[in-house]
């Protein structure tokens, strides 16, 4: 079976404003199967977001190959959805216009786009808020808009960059459950970047641990917890604790390395 996403020896370097070369990713290998929910965890600044940028086609790799469904990524792909860490809904559009944007950009008529948007707005539980502007919504509601905005295009791959990190704990587990519900109704592969190991395990089928920058995959773990899951309760399962322990042993070293580095650069 062709994997949904395959990165082979992917390296990404950036030129910093001061003219030096910064290596964000080094020789990264990652394979995601169709329909698989993967989480990517790693210390701050290890290039997690860069991985998503490579898969989405927003950034080309400096070296190595990135393939989506067997085809090399050359630009922004059709079947990609991307939920950003910061608010990326358009502040000058209403909820309805925000959600309808994707289909409209892809050539649907205004009328059809709005009909589909209404359907998605009700699926993410925002019926009645169609005419609000983003500033009139709470952080959690804006994330729902962002989810609907991405999912309406029927992505085969959904990339999520710490989407819930700005939410309070209760809203967050609510949103995580809804995400799992919405995802179960699609056949999309998900790559979910987070620094929260608990969130990673409770959502995903597989967890990739990325090393402190330059990032590369240190290890990957299969999460064999049954589905459907309730995010708020699954952490009490004994198996959850075992998996957590196992991955944390791996992750801890990377976090420490990254922390030491920050301290040093802070002192310098």
């Amino acid at each position: 079976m062709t994997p949904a996403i395959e990165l082979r020896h992917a390296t990404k370097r950036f030129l910093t404003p001061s003219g030096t070369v910064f290596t964000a990713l080094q020789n990264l290998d990652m394979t995601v199967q169709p329909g698989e929910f993967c989480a990517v965890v790693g210390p701050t600044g290890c290039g997690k977001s860069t991985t998503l940028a490579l898969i989405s086609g927003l950034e080309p790799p400096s070296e190595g190959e990135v393939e989506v469904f067997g085809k090399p990524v050359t630009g922004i792909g059709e079947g990609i959805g991307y939920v950003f860490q910061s608010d990326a809904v358009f502040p000058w559009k209403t909820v309805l216009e925000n959600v309808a944007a994707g289909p409209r950009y892809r050539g649907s008529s205004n009328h059809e786009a709005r009909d589909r948007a209404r359907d998605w707005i009700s699926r993410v539980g925002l019926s009645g808020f169609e005419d609000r502007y983003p500033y009139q919504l709470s952080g959690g509601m804006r994330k729902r808009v962002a989810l609907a905005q991405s999912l309406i295009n029927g992505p085969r791959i959904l990339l999520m960059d710490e989407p819930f990190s700005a939410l309070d704990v209760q809203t967050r587990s609510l949103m995580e459950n809804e995400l799992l519900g919405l995802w179960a109704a699609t056949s999309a592969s998900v790559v979910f970047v987070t620094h929260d190991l608990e969130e990673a395990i409770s959502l995903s089928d597989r967890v990739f641990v990325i090393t402190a920058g330059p990032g590369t995959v240190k290890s990957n773990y299969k999460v064999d917890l049954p589905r459907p899951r309730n995010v708020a309760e699954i952490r009490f399962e004994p198996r959850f604790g075992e998996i957590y322990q196992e991955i944390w042993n791996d992750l801890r070293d990377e976090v420490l390395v990254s922390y030491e580095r920050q301290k040093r650069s802070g002192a310098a």
Partner: protein
Amino acid sequence: MNVRSAAARLSAGMIARSEPAVRPSVDLVAKRRRDAQRRQLNVAGLRLLVAVVFLGGWEIGARLGWIDPFFWSQPSAIYAKFVYWITQGTELGPLWEQALVTMEETVGGFIVGSILGVIVGVALGRSRLLSDVLGPYIKAANAIPRVVVGALFAISLGLDIKSKIATAAVLVFFVVFFNAFQGVREVDRTLIANARILGAGDRQLTTEILIPSALSWIVASLHTSFGLALVGAVVGELFGATQGIGELIYNAKNQFDAAGVFAGMGLLAAMALVAEALITALEDRLIKWRPPVATETRI
């Protein structure tokens, strides 16, 4: 007495005190409203007082001979001039016609300058090459006191409305241009990435992301630029015209009629205030997606 009973008494006291918790909040709302009303009255009263002191002082000063009314006129003479203009007409024709001419020139220059400013600003904001090539020229052009182009336009475009619109448009253009340019440059990168992922092409990126995002900058510049459009129109008239408030002021100056100059200035100020209100209304329509800001800081 032990500590526990003291604590119990304390909490009992607190419960007793917190009982009428519903009523005070109603009172609070009413009090807030009363305070706000009183404040508004105070402000209006003080505003009136400032006007009375200023105009009264001027008038008294002129009558007592501290201020020479030949050079500085006096409120009563200015008012009389106004009344004369309205009832008898000006030497250029009816007063409303002069106001209308200047308004036409101002609005025309404002519209032309704004549209050109937005187009060029967005184009340069989008294209690195264009902005690098044209940047120094635009900075140089901006450094020239631009009202002097009014003289050029008076020669090339003649004494009618065209030369005034051109002068006003030049003044407006730069303000709007710089704001549009900056607005496009400062668009949130994430929004652009999001739009592209959602499938937006280059044109959609411009019309749906860049321009709306720059709009709050552009609209903010419209307040300043309308004032400049008025300056442009009036300066254009000073360089040579047959009608308009600027021409009226110019004539008054030639006749050493200080009251006429002041009356013209008052008219211009009134026009600017009306326009300001219209632009504020336009702003609220154009960027209604922004959270409302405290309006009191607005002047």
